[in-house]
Every structure is written in structure tokens, then in C-alpha cells.
């Protein structure tokens, strides 16, 4: 897998792509992830994220669902439809808590579904570390 997808690591750091439209949360992502030793890129919506994926292949994608321009459902569909990106690890971070939504993204190939308000950022960091470890 690593051969197929050159991981563009800066100084050996793991790359996290956070797709988050809320500026407040986006800034927390940026600060905390950098502090945890990750290289972090925040995309404001799905379209931006897909543009980014054309240049870089992150170790993990943290995907919000409700976003302007292109929402998380569509973004996930695009990622999974493209052979270049279909094997990327995607964890959905959303404040939607409906079971149907969760089921939908899991069926589409997300690794995990986290209701943001219900977890501390530390837990997210731990999940990210754990999922990056998994081959």
C-alpha cells in the first residue's frame, strides 16, 4: 500500500487532513494536532479536501459531515470512488448523532464515527494515533 501511495511526510511527521467548516473547531484542530506532532492541513469543505488529495496523500482524514459547497457524505463517496484515494483512512467527526447517518457513512467505508461534542480532543488524538498505526 505504501508503494502505491507515496506518503508525503514532512520531517517524518504523519499528515492529518481535517475537513472542518467551523472556523473555531478548525483552529483547534490546527493547534492541537500540530502540538501532538502531526503535520495538519485543514480543508473548509469537501471540494477543498478533494483538491488537496490531488497533491498529497494524508495518513488519515478527519471528515465533518455538514459543510457548505460539498458535504461529508459526498466527499466520502468521491474519495471511495477514486482508486487513487479509496484506500485512505477516513474517520468521520460530526455533531450529527442519528443512527442512520452513522450507519450510512460506515457502510460507505468510514473507519469510525465520532460525535464531536461527546468526546474530548484528547480522545480524538488517541483515535488518530491508533488508526494510523493500523495497516
Amino acid at each position, binding site marked *: 500500500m505504501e508503494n502505491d501511495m507515496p506518503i508525503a511526510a514532512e520531517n517524518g511527521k504523519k499528515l492529518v487532513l481535517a475537513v472542518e467548516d467551523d472556523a473555531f*473547531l478548525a483552529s*483547534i484542530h490546527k493547534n492541537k494536532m500540530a502540538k501532538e506532532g502531526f503535520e495538519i492541513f485543514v480543508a473548509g469543505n469537501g471540494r477543498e479536501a478533494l483538491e488537496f488529495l490531488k497533491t498529497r496523500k494524508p495518513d488519515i482524514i478527519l471528515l465533518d459531515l455538514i459543510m457548505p459547497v460539498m458535504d461529508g457524505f459526498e466527499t466520502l463517496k468521491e474519495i471511495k470512488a477514486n482508486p487513487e484515494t479509496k484506500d485512505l483512512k477516513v474517520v468521520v467527526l460530526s455533531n450529527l448523532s*442519528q443512527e442512520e447517518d452513522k450507519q450510512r457513512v460506515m457502510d460507505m467505508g468510514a473507519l469510525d464515527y465520532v460525535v464531536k461534542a461527546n468526546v474530548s480532543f484528547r480522545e480524538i488524538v488517541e483515535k488518530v494515533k491508533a488508526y494510523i498505526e493500523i495497516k
Partner: protein
Amino acid sequence: MKIANKISITIGLGSLGILVIAGFQSYSYNRDALEKNITENHLHVAAMYMEKIDQSLAAQYRNLKLTATRIKVRAFLSGQNSEEDRLLLEKGLKDDMAIYTGLNSLDILDKSGRIVASSSGERLGNRVTDKGEAFSGLFEKSLAGESGYSGVVLADNSSDKMEEYFMSPVLSQDGQEIIGVASESIDWNESMKILDGIDESIVRLYNSQGELIGAKNWQNSLAFSPEDKNKPALLEAFKEHPQENVLAGIANNSKALTSIAKENAMEEYLGNGWILITQTPVAVAFAGATKSALFLLLLLLPIIIIINIILIIIINRSVGVPLDFLIRKVKGVREENLTEVIPIISHDEIGELINAFNEMRVRLIESKSHLEEEVSQKTIELKTILDQTNKKNENLENSKKAMLNILEDFEESKKLLEREKTMYAAERDRSEGILRYLHSIGEGVIATDCDGVLTFVNLTAAKMIARAEGSPLIGKEYLNEFVFSSGKGSGKKILDPVAEALKSSAVFPLPPYCYLTTSISNIPISGSFAPIIKNGKPLGVVSVFQDITERYNLEKEKDDFLSITAHQLRTPLTGIRWTLESLLDGDAGKLPKEATELLDQIFKNNQRLVTLVNDLLDVSRINMGKSKEELDTVDVASLIIDGIKTLEGLAKEKKVKVIFEKECKEDPQIMIGPKHFFQAIENLVSNAIKYTPSGGEAHLLVSLKKQKVTIAVSDNGIGIPEKEQANIFRKFFRASNAVLKETEGSGLGLNVVRSFVEEGGGRIWFESKEGKGTTFFLEFPVAQARNVSIA
């Protein structure tokens, strides 16, 4: 003799005869068994004792041979010997005697038959040939080189002592010449005592020459004779069976059961073998058989006599008396009383005889009146012809009348038919009217028979499954045309509501989230299936269902709105949460203690808002009926264990121990929405942890009783004040002491739990004491194996 007497005597004699035969049969059967038994026993005893006898004789014989080969004996017989030599030899013989038991004497004879040395010394110089033919024969044989024994003889100077002589040749030193004979006399009385041990009353031992050589109580009997009457039979037996030990039972004479057995001797001495005859007197042998036959006779005789007497009485009554009566009557018949009928007194052969006699009498009278009758007959015949002509006319008249009657009846049934036709038409109109109504109803209506075959489908129902009007659905399996499913997509389960309604004999409402699958789409529907009952028996099932797509859409809109609202509320709360965490973690530098405390307050309140949003969402959904989760079989224990696991962190933080126990062996299953059940357990356990002081314990106990599963969640926490207990399940209610202990909490949790529990057909209640603790009980019916799904 009278017939009755003849029959009686025949029966009496016959039954006596049978009795005697039975007695005889019993005797001979028992006798055969006894004879076999006794004969077998004889032969067994004989074989055993003869072996003993032969062993003892063989030993004596071997001893004699030993003496005969002694150097001292050979030397003594080969040369001239002094008195001293003789005394020396006799001492040797005495020594041998002391070793060989059961001997009277041991002698050495020279070739002329003279005793030259003797253990007793008394008979020195005597010649054995003087003793008689038997002895000289035996001696001659020994000189010819053969060993042998004599018959039994009376000992010298004795009237009751028996002896048997064994003789064996003595050879010269070089073994070429016979120079004398060694002779021993066996104390026969002693030897034959062996036979006294045999149980049978008569026991006799013969040698191979057919000579009687021993008997039981030999000493007393002495009644032996060389010319025994058994001798020819014995010799014959010997000749015929030279190799066999047990010969056979000799046929018994009238007085005793006799058996004969043969034993071949171990050593090669005269004639080689013994025969033992054992006898048991018949009187003794068959005493048992005689006794049992006599017993049988004595027992049965009186019974047979009684039965005979009864039989004779019966025969006399049923044959003798009626016959006497008949004879009297027949004898009394005269011309003048020919008309007297003899009464039938018994309905058997005699009755028939009387009947026949009566008939004969009637014939007699008849033939007498025959002539007169002939005349009157002719007259009657003429009259009959006349009558017949008249009757034919009458018949013709009758037929005419009958025809008219039929015509009349026909007219009447025609009228009746027309009336029925009118009634039927009205009924049909009414039925058609009802059918029209049913067809026109906006809800789908279908009916099936008990096998699920469609008997009615209204237009709306046909339209729902996109069937063109007039397309035949009647007579088809409803399951193939109307596919009802619970849920859609991956969790879809095909339902057979007709079977459900028939099984329960009650209305079966379609569960929530039910769809009617058509070739085009899944239509959300609600409705019910009800059995059609006539006279207590189900005829089929009728169902009315409704397309509720619009309601669904409306609900979905509401749901989406709620969901987005929650989302929008949570997003800033998330930002606040994460920022506060960051601050508290010291990301912005170390904070003064007061600041930390204040931030902590803000953090807790923020969390309260998060919980409130979550719970509000749950409650709203429950109120909308949206939150209903599809029921499934849930393994109570494993879900509880999962629930406890997610709360491990909280329990650790609060220092509360959570203990799970299962009281029953089984793993109980219940029907409930799995996620809701999980949430309910999680909620109760987290309450138990939160409201218990650190170091406390929370217990979960699962038990199973009478098809009910009970889950008890107990803590030794703050408890619920008695005054407030009634409000505990109310929305937004929080107990006063709970608010003090935990600022977080929406007051919606228990309300949600109760809704979830009731969803699964369960109930919830609690027991609590302020300051002691609280126990929440959940009770559910055990899941029954469902067969709703037939997919």
C-alpha cells in the same frame, strides 16, 4: 337304559380315564427325568471312585515290581543261600512292607512255587499251587513273564478276611532268565473301604474277567460269587467298548436302576481294567414320581366327581325331563285329540322335535281336509279371474289420478323456484354492493383463506402493488404478491402477518417501520390483519392497510430539523469544550488556581449543555415515535457487560466498583431495540456511579424467574428522598440531593430509560432510601423463538 343315563355314564368314565392318563403321564414324565438324573449321577460317581481304586491298586503293583527287581531278591533266588541270607532278605521284605501300606504279606517264591522268603515267615515252604487253580494260573503267568493278580480269596485261617494276590516275575541279574516270583497279598477289606463312600445303595466292582472283586459294605456282605449273573453282560460290554471308560446304563430290571462304568487300569496287569456297577432301587429312585402322580390323582378325583355330578344333573334336566314329557304326549295322541298342540318346553333339539311332531300332526289334519279344499279351490279360482278383471280397470283409474297429481306438484315447484330466484337476486345485489364499497375504499383491503391464498383484493391494494385493474390476483399466494417487510435495506425482514393472525387468533397489527415492497418502491404502510372467524373456526384473514408515505415524509422533515438543530447547538459547545480542555491542560500556560476552578465550572456547565442536547434529542424522537428501534433478540448479559466496559473510565475516576452477577445458569434473551437497551443500561449504571460516594459499589444482577428476566442495578449511593420518589421519571426532574452532588444532568435520562424499557415490553421501578442507596429493577418477558420471518 335311558339316554340321560347313558350320557352320564360315558362322561363319568371318560373323565376318570383322562384322570388316570394324566396321573400316568405325570409319573412317567417325572420318572424319565429322575432316571436320567440318577444314571448321570451313577456314572459320575463311578468314574470318580474307580480312578481312586485303580490308583491304589496300581501303587501296590508298582511296589511289588520294585521288590522283584531288588538285587537282594535276585541274588537270593540265583544261588544257594544260608539261613542267615534268608533272614536278611526277610528283614528287607519287612522293611518294604512297612513302607507299602495295605498289604498282608510280601513273599518270594522259587520257580517251583514254594515260598522261600516271607515277610511273615509263617508260611515258609508252602506252595502257592496248593492253594487252588486261580493261584497256580497266576503263578504260571508270572513264570511266563507277565505280572497279574488273582481273584479275591479268603485269607488263610480266616473266615472274614479277604485277600487279593499280585504276582510279578523276578529276573536274573543279567535279565535273561526268570528265576522266581514276587507275590504280595493285599488286605482287600481295607482296599474296598473306598467303595463304602459311595451313596448308592448297591455298588459292585468287577475285574475285566467279569469277576466280582468288591462291593459296598464288602466286609459285611461277603456275598460274592465268581459266577455272577451280570458276568455275560459285563464281558460283552468290555468287548464292545474296549477304549471307553463310561459304558452305559444297563437297562434297569424291575427292582433297581443299574448303571455300569468301566475304567482302564493305569498299569499293564491282568485283563487291564475294572467295571463298577451302581444300582439304585426303583422304589427309592422313583419315589418322587410316584408321590407326585398320587398327589395329582387324589387332588383331581374329588373335583372330577363333583363336576360329573353337576353335569349329570344338567343333562337330566335338559334332556331327560323334556324327552319323558314328549314321550308321554306322543303316547297320548288319539284321533279325537289330534288338534291338541304339544307346548314347546325347551328351545333346543328336543324343542325342534316337538315342533316337528306338531307339524306332522298338522299335516295329518291337512291331508284329511284336502279333498274338501280341492273343491272350494276351483270355486275360488273362478272368482279370482273375475276379481282380476275388475282390478285392472281400477289400476287404470289410479294411474290417471297420479298423473294429475304430478302435474299439480310441478306447477307448485315452479312457483317456489321463481320466488327463490327473486330472493337470490336481491342477495346478490347486496353482496355486490358490499364488494363495490370494499373496492372503493381508499385503504388497501385484502383477504386470504387459511392457506394464505388471496380471496379478495380491492382496487386500492392492487394499485399499491402496481397491478393493472382486472389482473387476476384471486387464487394466488398472497406472500408472492404482497410482500410485507419490517424495515428496508439490509435489516429487512419479510413478514407473514396472515400466519401471525391465524396463530394468535387475534388482530395482528403491522409493526412500526413496515413496508409493502413493490416492483417499484417500498411503500411505508400501517395496518392490521384480523382472522375471519365463523362458528369459532377461522375461515381466513382480512387486512386493511394504508400508505403512510406522507406521514413518513413529514416525520422525516421534523427529524432532519431536529437533527440539524442538535448539530448546530453542539458545534459551538464542542469548540468551547475543546478550548476549555486545552486551557485546563495548560496549553496557554499554567493558570492560577482560582482560574482553574472557574474554568472547571464552565466546563461542567458546558458538559451539562451537551448532555441536555443529547437527551432533548432522544426525548423529542421518542415523543415523535421516531426513536422506536426495531426489536431484536438481545442477549442480556453480554450487552450489560459491554455497557459496563464503556463506563470503566468513569468508574475509575469516581472510584466506584461496578460488579456484574448472573443468578441464572441460562443466558436470558429478550426482545428489545439493542441500542436502546444498551443506552438504558449505560444510563442506569452511570447514574449508579455518579451518585455513589467514592469507594462505593454498584451491582448489576440478572435473574430469571417464571419466564421473566429481571435486571437489578443497585448502588449504595445517596438514594432518592422519599418525597421526591414519585417524580423521578418526570422529564427535567432532578432530585434535590442529586443536583447538589452532580451539577451535570438534564433530568431527562430516566425518562428516556423508561421509554426504552417500555418499548421492549418491559417495566421499570425502583426501591430507594435516602443515604442508603437505590436499586432500579428492569423486568422483561423472555424472548420467545419468533418465526415471523420466512424470507
